[in-house]
Structures are given as structure tokens and as C-alpha cells.
């Protein structure tokens, strides 16, 4: 089994994953996502691999690279379909709703006029998010109509086309924290809380990870959310409503865990590597399709 790690930069997470693989006697080939040229019949400079673990920072690059790999018959973790779904908040929301997973009330609008109407329908405060993007970038808590008009105008005027896909969600009065549950395969293996005085509790934005009990309620919704988007190695973001029920607002396909590793109290990189190895054995690439084909560019 030839194990590839697709990366943009080698961060602490990737080093931990490489070490976990080495501890299991598995040689990993590092593949710089930007170093390849992707052809319809093969990629230049792609080493022979049977399975690829995606650790790419860029959602767009990951999406295309994984789809090309899939067409070459290479198993990927996660699959391009899961990456496409999780990298787009609207598609995630639809998948959660269709699977019956509790998720905050969400509206999408394409024009400033409809966005304003949608915010008023949700009620204040509402949350305005970019439909793609991560690390809690460009989230806005909209408290009144004047704010809504300003933010919408800024997004429509200064942002790229993607910023005119207005993704509007109800604001959940959570108890100063949200939850991050880790699902590998079909099992929720751990959970942490992320606490902050700010309404944004992402650890990238200063949220503090703390240990909490993995309850059956958390397990159930996390596993259901993971299944809804297609499964794999996933970080499920949950919020606690004032009545104690849980709601899933996001599913992350490129799990970051370095800042929370000790808090999880489990061997996260080891579990991921074990899952990748098992995936390679369970879903081997399409038989007879070579993993390296001379690129049309080189002919």
C-alpha cells in the first residue's frame, strides 16, 4: 500500500500524521499539491500511490486535485464529493437538512435586496457568513437593519462574486462555547468544547479548547452529521441551544487538531492514519488503472 500525503505546507498536524504513519511502519510520500500538473489521463510528477490523505490548505485546490486523483483510480480521504459538500456552507446545510440533522435556520439570497429581506425574516441578531471560507473569516453578527444594509453593501461592492451568495443563519445564544466533535469513519471518537468571551469561539480566533464528556447525544448528532455529508475524517461543529438541544452548523473536511490534541485525550493522528490505511484496503483504486500515466503535456 502506497500512502500519499497531499499538502500545501507541512504544519504541526502534518508532522504528527507523518510520525504516526512512521510509527506504523508505513512510508508516506509527500505530494505538494502545487507541484503537479493535472491531466485528464494522469498527473505529471505524481508518484505512485494507492491512497491519498488530503491535507491541502486551499479548498479549491483540494477539490480539483482529489477529483483528478479519483479519476486516476486513487482512493482519497476525504472523497472529492465530501470536500465539495463541506467546503460550501449552503451545500452542507442542505445535506444536513435532507438527512434530518438539526441545523440552524438558514437562508441564502443572491441579491442585496433579497439578502436584507432574508435577514429580516431570520430576525436580529442574524449571522452573515461567506458561503465558502474557513477559520471564522468574515463572519458578521448583524444586530439591526442599519448594520445589515452596511454589511450587505460592503460585501456586494468590495467582495468577489462568492460574497454575493449571501448565506444567512439564525444566531444561537450558546453558553460561551461551541463543541467540536471528531468523527472518523462512522464513529465519533472525541469531542472538545471551545470557549471564548467572543461570540466566535473558533480556536483560530482565540477560543480555548477544553475537555468535555462525549455524551450519547453528542455522538448521535455528530455521527449523523458526518453521514449526511458522506463520511470520512470530519470535524463536526455543534452549538448548544438554550434548551440544551444540539444543532450542527458546520462540518469540516480538513481537520485541524494540533492546538487541541492533549484536550481530546486520544491519539488523533494515529486514528486518522489507521483510517486511511483501512480505506486503502477497503476501497482500492479501480483495478487496472495505473496511478501514474504520462501526462498529455509531456507528449
Amino acid at each position, binding site marked *: 500500500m502506497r500512502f500519499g500525503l497531499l*499538502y*500545501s*505546507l*507541512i*504544519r504541526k498536524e*502534518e*508532522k504528527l500524521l*507523518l510520525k504516526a504513519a512512521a510509527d506504523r511502519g508505513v512510508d508516506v510520500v*509527500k505530494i*505538494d499539491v502545487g507541484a503537479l500538473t493535472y491531466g485528464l489521463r494522469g498527473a505529471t510528477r505524481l508518484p505512485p500511490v494507492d491512497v491519498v490523505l488530503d491535507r491541502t*490548505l*486551499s*479548498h*479549491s485546490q483540494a477539490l480539483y486535485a482529489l477529483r483528478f486523483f479519483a479519476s486516476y483510480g486513487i482512493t482519497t480521504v476525504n472523497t472529492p464529493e465530501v470536500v465539495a459538500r463541506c*467546503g460550501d456552507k449552503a451545500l452542507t446545510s442542505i445535506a444536513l437538512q435532507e438527512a434530518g440533522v438539526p441545523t440552524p435556520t438558514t437562508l441564502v439570497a443572491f441579491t442585496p435586496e433579497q439578502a436584507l429581506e432574508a435577514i429580516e425574516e431570520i430576525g436580529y441578531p442574524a449571522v452573515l457568513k461567506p458561503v*465558502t*471560507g*474557513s*477559520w471564522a*473569516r468574515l463572519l458578521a453578527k448583524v444586530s439591526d437593519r442599519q448594520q445589515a444594509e452596511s454589511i450587505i453593501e460592503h460585501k456586494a461592492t468590495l467582495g*468577489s462574486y462568492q460574497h454575493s451568495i449571501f448565506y444567512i443563519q439564525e444566531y444561537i445564544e450558546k453558553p460561551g462555547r461551541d463543541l467540536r466533535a471528531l468523527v472518523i469513519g462512522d464513529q465519533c471518537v472525541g469531542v472538545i468544547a471551545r470557549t471564548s468571551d467572543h461570540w466566535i469561539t473558533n480556536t483560530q480566533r482565540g477560543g480555548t479548547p477544553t475537555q468535555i464528556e462525549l455524551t450519547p447525544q453528542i455522538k448521535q448528532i455528530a455521527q449523523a452529521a458526518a453521514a449526511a455529508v458522506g463520511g470520512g475524517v470530519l*470535524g463536526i461543529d455543534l452549538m448548544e441551544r438554550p434548551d440544551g438541544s444540539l444543532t450542527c452548523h458546520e462540518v*469540516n*473536511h*480538513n*481537520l*485541524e487538531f494540533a492546538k487541541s490534541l492533549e484536550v481530546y485525550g486520544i491519539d488523533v493522528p494515529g486514528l486518522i492514519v489507521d483510517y486511511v490505511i483501512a480505506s486503502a484496503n477497503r476501497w482500492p483504486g479501480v483495478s487496472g488503472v495505473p496511478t501514474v500515466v504520462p501526462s498529455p503535456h509531456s507528449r
Partner: protein
Amino acid sequence: MVECTECGATLAMNEDTEVGELITCGDCGADLEVTGMTPPMVQLAPQEEEDWGE
């Protein structure tokens, strides 16, 4: 040892440093990407893009 491309400070590379690894210059704080090990080479790491993340 390698020289920071931004401030010229000398950086020590660990034995387990990987090509592609992100390191930070202790003097100027620049984020650098390791582009080679023999000989050690670094370049300014790419800036965060709008679609980067989890």
C-alpha cells in the same frame, strides 16, 4: 543552518525538519517555508488565501 530571506538572521534546522514545513524566524517573525534540506533552503511562506482553512 539557513538564512532568513527577510531579515538575514541565521536559523537552525532540526534533524526532523521536512521539506514543505512552515517555520518562523525568531528574529523578525516571518513565516518561512522550507524548500530544501540539502542544502537547507527557505522562502517566504505563501500568504493565507481566502479559501484556506479546515
